[in-house]
Structures are given as structure tokens and as C-alpha cells.
């Protein structure tokens, strides 16, 4: 897994609530047997019209906005457990999603793929939307070590992250490494409960 420490970039505002994983990557693209190529189809049915031409009114097609931070409305990533949603966002180039609330399974999937879910207050989220929409050049800094999100070196908010997951992201470890280091304990547990 790719390491994550700090990131400063412009951001893309997706001001929609309850963005579900079917929107992030529609089911018809889940037929692949590897993790590649999902970025091409991220938000497919919002990004493209039925005839395959880009939907110019969708924010990812708006040349005003760019960057590897996605700012989205509350309850981001609800619905299906498909990890393809995280692969699609990472594949497209996002490293961070900022929202005021994340669905559980998506949050775990994101963390397992080096995509950092940053949960902020409703007020801060609204401020982010307003600031980025007023000035799309606004730089946002995410500092994982300090657990802060900063707008243009000025306005700051802290965010929570599980300390274990933080260590994993900072070092590029994943859960399999850790679980395998505990195999003896796991086998002992099996023996006592069988």
C-alpha cells in the first residue's frame, strides 16, 4: 500500500449528499477480475451522457476544478461493499475524500487502499465548499501525522483516525501483515474454542 503523510493540493467539490457506491462505480463495471482500470469509470453515469459524451455540467468535467482531494456531501460511500469504489477513486487520482460523514464499509475499504477519508464538521465542510467554489485555486493541506486539514495555511480543523490505521497509512503497512504475525495466537484460539 502507498504511504500517506502530507498532501497539499486544490480540491474538487461534489456537493451531493448520500453518494452511494453504485454512483462511484456502477455494477456493470464490476466484471473485471483485477483492480486495474476502474478509474476510467468513476462516477460513470454522472460524468458521461448515455451517448458517451462527457456531461459538461458534472464537476469532474469542469476545467475550473482539479486536484487529488474530493470534497463530498454527508454519508459518502453508502450502499454496496464493493471495494471497486475505492479502487475507482484512487485510479482516477484521488488521495483524500473529505466529508462530514462516511459509510462504514467504504471507510474501511478506502483506508485499505491508501485513500484517506477525512471526516470534518458540517460547518467546516460547508466552509470548504464555499471557499473552493469561490476560489478554485484554494490549496488544502492534509497532515496525517498532525491529523489536521488546513485551508490556505489559515483555517484549520482536526480529524479523527484510528491510531492503528494511522500507523498503517504512514508506513504503508496493511492488515494482512499484522494478522499473519498473529497466526500462532489465532491457531491457539481455534484450539481452545473447537
Amino acid at each position: 500500500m502507498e504511504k500517506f503523510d502530507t498532501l497539499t493540493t486544490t480540491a474538487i467539490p461534489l456537493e451531493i449528499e448520500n453518494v452511494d457506491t453504485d454512483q462511484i462505480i456502477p455494477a456493470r463495471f464490476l466484471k473485471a477480475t483485477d483492480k486495474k482500470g476502474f478509474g476510467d469509470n468513476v462516477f460513470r453515469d454522472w460524468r458521461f451522457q448515455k451517448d458517451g459524451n462527457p456531461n459538461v455540467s458534472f464537476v469532474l468535467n469542469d476545467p475550473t476544478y482539479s486536484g487529488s482531494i474530493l470534497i463530498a456531501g454527508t454519508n459518502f460511500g453508502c450502499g454496496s461493499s464493493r471495494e471497486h469504489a475505492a479502487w475507482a477513486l484512487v485510479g482516477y487520482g484521488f488521495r483524500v475524500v473529505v466529508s462530514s460523514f462516511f459509510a462504514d464499509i467504504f471507510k474501511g475499504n478506502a483506508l485499505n487502499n491508501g485513500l484517506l477519508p477525512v471526516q470534518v464538521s458540517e460547518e467546516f465542510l460547508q466552509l470548504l465548499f464555499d471557499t473552493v467554489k469561490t476560489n478554485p485555486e484554494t490549496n488544502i493541506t492534509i497532515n496525517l501525522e498532525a491529523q489536521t486539514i488546513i485551508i490556505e495555511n489559515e483555517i484549520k480543523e482536526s480529524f479523527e483516525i484510528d491510531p492503528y490505521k494511522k500507523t498503517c497509512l504512514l508506513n504503508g503497512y496493511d492488515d494482512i501483515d499484522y494478522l499473519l504475525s498473529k497466526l500462532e495466537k489465532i491457531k491457539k484460539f481455534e484450539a481452545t474454542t473447537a
Partner: protein
Amino acid sequence: MKKTLFDKVWDAHVVDAIENGPQILYIDKHLIHEVTSPQAFQTLEERGIPILRPDQIVATADHNTPTLDQDKPIKDPLSRHQLEQLSKNCEKHGITLYELGHQYNGIVHVMAPELGITQPGMTLVCGDSHTSTHGAFGSIAFGIGTSQVAQVFASQCLLLKKPKKMRVTVNGSLKKGVLPKDVILYIISQIGTNAGTGYFCEYAGEVFENMSMEGRMTVCNMSIEMGARGGMIAPDETTFNYVKGRKFAPKGSDFDTKVAYWKTLPTDEGAVFDKEYTFDAADINPMITYGTNPGMGIKVNGHIPQQEDTSFQKSLAYMGFEAGGRLLDTPINYVFIGSCTNSRIEDFRVAASFVKGKQKAENVTAWLVPGSKQVEAQIIDEGLRDIFEEAGFRLRQPGCSACLAMNDDKIPEGEYCVSTSNRNFEGRQGQGSRTLLASPLVAAATAIEGRIVDITKHLN
């Protein structure tokens, strides 16, 4: 200390804990299917890690399978490849697979309970968010991502922070025509689609005590639609009677020993939940959804609420409905009875009892998709297929089908579909499709009338 059902099952499966971090939770059963497993097999192969307990994994093909001509080769090369990959992976690693056409094949959340794979007190996972279904047995069951599928392959464990606990109590008795699907749609419409995020939800009270196992599965299935990773119902005589005698259920004295343990699992009197909701069964009516998340539900003869926010308005615009309006008499051309929510025999019985002696409306294309080969066989044995065929319906073969439209069962753009499935997200049933979630009874009535009707009037 007083413990909840969830605490008891969880605590019995904790192998170890990281200080200030997650716990290592042991997983008893791991169910897999063709869509979310291939990349997990790939991860293990790339890293040269063996599968620790292949005998605790059961596989089925369901998401990406055709519901007609299952005996013929699959036309779509990508789908065919994905199913072949599952077969190869299972063969290579010695995993039991109920592949397409097998007498036990079916939707993972239908076939596992009916084979007795799902049992009270277990931990059970699957790379599918509707794994919450199995909590109906008093097990901890939840959906996981593909990285976690790989973790369970490698270690039979997951690293998890213990979720919080909530309880939804519904007392009283349900009115005529109100089905388990209406109960869960009602609950979600009241508490919202993220009320359960971070929680495991126990359903308690007379309504669930008096519900069949199939009804309980319908309720627990949709726990994820209010954000809860899992739902649970205390195991009782209904549970034990359902499990008894099934293929993989414990037999003889083993069964009795298990039942004695299972009886210790219900929540202790006085145990504390982090959050509680209480509802009265008398307030629940046949439900239908009008928007693009499962929380946007109203009683079938009710009015769409008024809300200012843009997400709500975007949703209504997509659906082509107006705030304050009603859904009654909306013409409907598509009806889907199926999915891991409502594709069990009781669902087809209730639909058949309504359509018996009537004729399907001419404008309606109806897809009746059983949840498993066993349900399909039961539909035929009980004579329900004849009833459906006489009414102008055609029974298809088992699979997830139009619930997520990965196969050819897609609702055309702009069309409404009254569906017994679990998600009404934009395009869920096909690009541009518009889904209205409802019970099998409301779906059956819609298919007969070709429009949304007030089912309560048809029952009296």
C-alpha cells in the same frame, strides 16, 4: 456485567486486541461469490500466502449470472470469465462451490441459511453488504471489502474496532397486508439512512418475536440501508426449528448442545445500548419509496414530503415525482420480485396468493426470480409456478438479477420498476432506471394493476 446479544457473540470471538486499536475477531464462516473475490485470491497469490481454512469458506455464483438458459454457455465474455475464475480459484484452493446450475446454487444470503450454514452465535462475513441478512439467526454477520476478504483468506480473522450497539424495538401486532419489508422500510424512513453507521442493530419486540425466519432475514438484510454494518435478532424456538435438520446443521446430541448454548445468547435484562428507538406496529402501513435512497419511503397511499435541500430535489427530479404529490395510480411497466431481501418461498407464496385467478396487466413486464435452486424447486412443487403462469407471469432462474443489474436483467432508461429489492439508488437496476422499493405483496398488486394501488383497499 449485563451483556447484549451482540456483546456475547462478539466477545466470544476476540482472539487478541491492539492497545488503543482494533481487535482481532475470529470468523467462523466466510461466504464468497464471483464479483468481490477474484482480487482477493490474486492478492494472496502475488504474496505467496496460503488460504488458512478453506473448509470454512463456501462459494456460490449469483451476482453476475443469467436468469434464463442457465444450462447454456454464458454469452457475455466478461461475465463468463469471472465465473470461470471463481471455479478455478475454488478448485485450486479446495473450497466448496455451488456453481451455476447446482441444486444448492443461489443468492449467497438465501442459499447459506437454507443449507444450515448460517447458525446462531456465529461470526460470518461475505464481500457483500447484505451479509447483514444472516444476523436474523442471532449471528454477527456483516459485509466486507475485498481487502478484508483477503485478510480472512490469510488468517480467518479481521481487524476491527468493536461497533457500538443500538436497538430498535417494535411492539404490537402488524396490520393485515403489512409485511416484514414494510417494517424495515418504515424503520429506515423514520431514522434515516445513516442512523446505524458505526452500530450493530438488534431488533427486538413482539413484531420480531412473532416473525418467521424468512421475515427476520428480510429485516436484517436491510440493516445496511440505515448504515448499520449488521442487524441481529435473538435466537429462539423459531430459529432452532428453522435450523434443525438442515444439511449443515449440527445433528443429534450436537444439536442439543448447541441449542443449550444458543439459549444463553439473548440480551440480558437491563443491558445497555448506546442508542434505542421504539416504534408501534400499529403505525406501520404498506410502504413504497419515492426517491433514490431507501430512507425515502412513505406509506403506499401517502404523500411525498416537502424538503428544501438540493440532494432531495435532485432525487425527486431523477424520479420524476413532485414534493407533496402521491404515487397512487402512477403507471408502472416493470415489476421485479426477487433479490436477497425478498426471494424466499414465503415471498412467492404471498405474491401467488394475490395473483391467483387474476391476470397480469398488459403493460407490465414482470421478473420473478427465486433466490435459489431450492426456492425454485419449492415454487414448482407447491404449484405456485402454475398460478404465476396462468396469471401471465414467467418464472426465471435464481440469481441477484435486476437488483443490481449486472447481468442482462436491466430496467430500461426512464422506466419505473416496483421492486422487492433493497436499493433504489440512481441507475441501480440499469442506467437511468427508476426504482420504487416495496413488499412482494405491493409488487404483485402493481403487476396485476399496471399502476400503484392502495393495497389496503384490495385486502378488505
